[in-house]
């Protein structure tokens, strides 16, 4: 692990108290100034991974390691978590309507986060809130801070959410589907904001199910399937030459940007495994078009150039 590495997750496993497996070997790493896209379909464990990094999962058994700036997060106590959350690692949620407290003014909620972590007067905190809102492209930020969440449009709410996340200059920003609930035009604006933020040196972990968002805003990508990272590497490499059959199927299911639109997009047959009925070997084997007898054993992680893939096709 070099000095630039901000976050590294090593072989993270989560299980419910009753033994059902939620995450089964998630390994990721993220350096300063990088943007890591975590892609997968619903239920693949994207949000769970993010919640683990934030320490927001109460009743699960975890193993493996989550290292943030050389600290093992899974080992720290509640007080240390509280100092970390919002200050060093901040999070943006999918739906900014429900993520804000509906009964308090937006500005007051941002002030609160600032004052939780820094000794500032109300007035100083509000000045920073207004400045941040302005930087996020909110018109008339002082007036916007005095509004309630439901009085702002979806795009403005998400900008305010990002302003709140950035209010204590976190080293790592986790965005959990930040654009899913927004219009397409607003989506693009928010992605530009997030990309700019990365240039200031913070790390960004972007959780999405949209390969287009990854291509637009990320430097690296990790593909998650049923709680396992099946492939990861730089965005260009993965998008140009996907190695894992699941990644290929996922990319094939995207409509092409140019040329004639196909009448049918190829879909992946079958359903992801339920947490209590996981295949013992490769988790994708039941749906994989290239399944082989040796898929019944969990394949090892194989390094192919800049990419890492978990598949028997590449095991020598």
């Amino acid at each position: 692990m070099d000095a630039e590495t901000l976050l590294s997750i090593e072989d993270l496993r989560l299980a419910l108290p009753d033994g059902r497996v939620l995450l089964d070997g998630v390994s990721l790493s993220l350096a300063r100034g990088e943007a890591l896209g975590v892609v997968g379909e619903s239920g693949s464990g994207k949000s769970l991974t993010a919640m683990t990094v934030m320490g927001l999962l109460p009743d699960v058994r975890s193993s493996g390691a989550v290292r943030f700036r050389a600290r093992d997060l899974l080992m720290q106590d509640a007080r240390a978590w509280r100092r970390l959350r919002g200050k060093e690692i901040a999070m943006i949620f999918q739906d900014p309507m429900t993520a804000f407290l509906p009964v308090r003014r937006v500005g007051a909620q941002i002030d609160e986060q600032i004052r939780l972590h820094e000794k500032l007067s109300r007035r100083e905190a509000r000045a920073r809130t207004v400045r941040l809102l302005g930087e996020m492209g909110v018109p008339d930020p002082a007036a916007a801070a005095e509004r309630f969440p439901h009085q702002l449009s979806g795009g403005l709410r998400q900008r305010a959410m990002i302003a709140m996340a950035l209010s204590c200059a976190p080293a790592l920003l986790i965005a959990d589907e930040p654009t899913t609930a927004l219009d397409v035009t607003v989506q693009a604006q928010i992605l530009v904001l997030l990309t700019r933020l990365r240039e200031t040196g913070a790390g960004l972990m972007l959780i999405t199910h949209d390969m287009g968002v990854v291509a637009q805003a990320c430097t690296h990508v990790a593909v998650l399937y049923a709680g396992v990272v099946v492939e990861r590497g730089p965005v260009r490499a993965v998008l140009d030459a996907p190695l894992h059959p699941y990644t290929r199927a996922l990319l094939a299911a995207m409509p092409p940007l140019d040329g004639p639109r196909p009448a049918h997009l190829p879909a992946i047959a079958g359903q992801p495994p339920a947490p209590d009925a996981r295949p013992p070997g490769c988790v994708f084997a039941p749906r994989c078009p290239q399944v082989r007898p040796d898929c019944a054993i969990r394949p090892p992680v194989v390094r192919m150039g800049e990419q890492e893939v978990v598949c028997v096709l590449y095991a020598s």
Partner: protein
Amino acid sequence: MLRMLAARLGQMVFVLFGISVLVFGVFFATPGADPTARIAGRGASPEVMARVRSAYGFDRPLPVQYARMMEKLFVSRDLTSFVDHGAPVVPEVMAAAPVTLSLVLWASLFWVVFSLAIGIVSAVLRDSWVDRFFMGIGLLGLSMPVFWLGEVVNLVTQSRFHDTWLFSWVPPLGYVPFSESPLGWARALLLPALTLSVAFIGLYARVLRAELLAAMGEDAIRTARAKGAGPARVWLWHGLRLSWLSYVSLFGMDFAQLVGGGALLTEVVFALPGVGRLTYQGLNTLDLPLIMATVMYAAVFVVLANAVIDGVYALLDPRIAEGRHGR
């Protein structure tokens, strides 16, 4: 704003008018409910009946009777009791109101403090033995009839154990005005107020616990924790803020109906000369003017409380002020 206020006022007057017509109709215009026969007494001769009928105006058409009743109740305020031979009714209700108000203020203080504490503790420690214990006690308090509980309290504090150090301070049943002796006032009301509040504590603690637990599952609470807020802040500042709407509206309604005479059983058991007991007397003797006065008094409080609750709602949840609903 001014127009909204005027509309609200108009609504209130309309509701009060409706209630007064209804009550008047029930007691004066229902077949068989002949007020003349009640006043004249059993076995009165037709001559006496006729005299009473003309003296009280029962020989006039109903709308005129209604108008005269309302005029006497609200304008000249000299409506007199049928039973107590001419005692004016309105001063009687006005004299009883402070007693009821004192009792209900004390009781609401107890039930808000205790139900908040129990509700929050039970929600935080949900499914633990503490939670089960409190919810069990709450259910018990909820299901104990207040008149029975009051009699038991009286039995224990007034006779059985009155001479022990524990209850020797308990004054005899009745009311002491605040202006006469503040300490005596508080002592006379402590036990009645506690008795009255027991059922409300049980109910309110349960409601608060359920609402708080529902609120804690919301995204906004996850955001609060992601901001780095500690558990006390998350529960009390964010959680309560999301969950106390139904608590507040419940409180407004219960407070109003108790001030309006809903504490009748407690007042009767503890011999407090409040509005509830006055209503009870009126019903016992079918003293129509008295019933009319107490019911209208209660209606005024309930209608007022409704208006106040709506105002508080808009303060607590800005979405309601703009006519938007739902979280």
